[in-house]
């Protein structure tokens, strides 16, 4: 482990991995609850155009990606609401527009090559610079702050939009807020796992946590734990075994998902055997202490 920390680039990569492992499952929990699991994927495609714009204009690609992804997220949310019937088709149009725009602009950039494109498509955590770390850190703080302030409202929104309206909540504002927060999270995770796999870190830890939990808060807490384990574990494994970090992180998350499915099955079986009363193992899982971004009763 000390060997890992000797390298400047690895220290930066580890910081990025911690931020990504922490933030992506939080927003992912809300997206899964809202049944918008693929929203992150769509935003990832659009973010590529932003990256290319940054490279072309000589500004920080992370910053331009944040701007373009945010605009894309707002556009997607409006398209989703306005064209309810063909929402998925409209989203698909944006996906392909985003990725085609990115490839085209990178092609126009002098000095940029397929390697540049690949590093953004599949992540290149080892090239994260100091400026990137500051931007990613600030975005992470912003995302967590938004969810801490609006978590309760977002929970109601993701549970049932009609109920949110009947509570007088600003549904359109909250929907756009969630989409924009997702966009910023995509930009945070982009450098680590790449735009094509960014959604995996939002969704897979949540899918794994669901297998082991009965409550929203515990699901979110477990998802953060699984997200951190995957990002840190994947990065370390990639360093020692000379593997692609992004892919290693995602595959580790998927392995943890499989483990959670097995464990969940065992727990359920034990629960059944000890029926009729709700069984002890479940109660133990439920009482794991975890961050409480919802702050609910």
């Amino acid at each position: 482990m000390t060997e890992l920390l000797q390298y400047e680039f690895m220290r930066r990569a580890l910081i990025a991995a911690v931020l990504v492992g922490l933030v992506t499952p939080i927003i992912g929990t809300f997206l899964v609850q809202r049944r918008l699991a693929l929203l992150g994927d769509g935003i990832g495609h659009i973010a590529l155009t932003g990256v290319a714009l940054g490279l072309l204009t000589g500004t920080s690609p992370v910053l331009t990606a944040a701007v373009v992804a945010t605009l894309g997220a707002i556009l997607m949310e409006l398209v989703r609401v306005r064209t309810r019937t063909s929402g998925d088709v409209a989203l698909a149009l944006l996906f392909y527009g985003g990725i085609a725009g990115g490839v085209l602009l990178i092609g126009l950039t002098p000095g940029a090559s397929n390697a540049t494109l690949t590093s953004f498509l599949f992540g290149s955590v080892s090239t994260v610079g100091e400026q990137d770390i500051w931007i990613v850190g600030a975005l992470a703080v912003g995302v967590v702050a938004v969810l801490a302030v609006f978590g309760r409202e977002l929970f109601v929104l993701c549970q049932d939009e009609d109920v949110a309206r009947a509570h007088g909540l600003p549904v359109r504002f909250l929907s756009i807020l969630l989409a924009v927060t997702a966009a910023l999270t995509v930009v945070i995770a982009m450098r680590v796992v790449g735009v094509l796999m960014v959604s995996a870190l939002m969704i897979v830890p949540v899918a794994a946590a669901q297998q082991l939990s009965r409550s929203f808060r515990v699901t979110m807490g477990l998802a953060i734990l699984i997200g951190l384990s995957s990002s840190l574990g994947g990065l370390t494994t990639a360093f020692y075994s000379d593997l692609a970090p992004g892919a290693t992180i995602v595959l580790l998350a998927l392995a943890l998902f499989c483990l959670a499915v097995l464990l969940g099955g065992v727990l359920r079986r034990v629960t059944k055997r000890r029926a009729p009363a709700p069984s002890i193992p479940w109660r133990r899982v439920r009482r794991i202490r975890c961050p409480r971004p919802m702050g609910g009763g």
Partner: protein
Amino acid sequence: MRATLGNFDNHFRFRHNEAVSAQFTGDGAQSPGTPPAFQAIDAYAAYDGVTVLNGVSIDIPVGQTMAVLGPNGSGKSTLMRAMLGIVPLASGEIRVHGTPLRRFRDWKRMGYVPQRLTAGGAVPATVREIVASGQVARRRRLSWPTRDDRAAVDEALAAVDLSDRAGDAVRELSGGQQQRVLIARALAGRPDTFVMDEPMAGVDAENQRALAKAIARLRDQGSTVVLVLHELGPLEEVIERAVVLEHGRVVHDGEAPEATGECARPGHEHQHPHPDPNDPDPNSADTSTPAEMIRLEVPRRD
């Protein structure tokens, strides 16, 4: 199950004593000068060019327990959704407690009970988490729940006799129990105006009677309760006034229509209460004969 009903009784008797004031005596008559809880003024609404509400005007005074009845497609659900601002009106106006809906901000007075726990929410949530979310309109941001907030959640759970299931995942409950969770969610915000969308649909007979008792208690404590119903069923005794919609128009407004039980009439659709297939203990379900449960839900225009 008898214990369930007993708990309902005890709980609401307690709340009733707390809540009864000079303003709400007996049948919940409103004091003069209080604006109606809801007012629809010549309301029109349309979906994709098809008119669903065709000039509906009704006043619902504070403290009234009212049913909106009508066949499928009559506009009864749309009227209710328009009253809460879920569906926009094409023309006309909705006023809530005297304020035009657009400018209404006192949402903590409202308790909405949707027809079912939506499929939305792929992430598991406990009964307590769902019930506590009903306080969203009255809680301040970035604050922990106060003792009072927690007490309101406990009280709401007790009112629907789900205190012992508070830590369970809602999706493990039966349909009738989930319906009770939704009512508890509305109660947790301690509102005085309730809007319920077919709370009896898909609920077994025993749970239906328990829900009817809960609604009766709300009425007794002076709350306004608006129910969208397909049939009166066990709520017949509770309802003070029934408005019947047909093709987006009010065709009856007054006493709850008599139950005639003519199920075989052409065009008549009813929903028998039946034991919930997901209920873990089917033996606890009610065994009354279907004939007892049949109620007219779509009275014909006189």
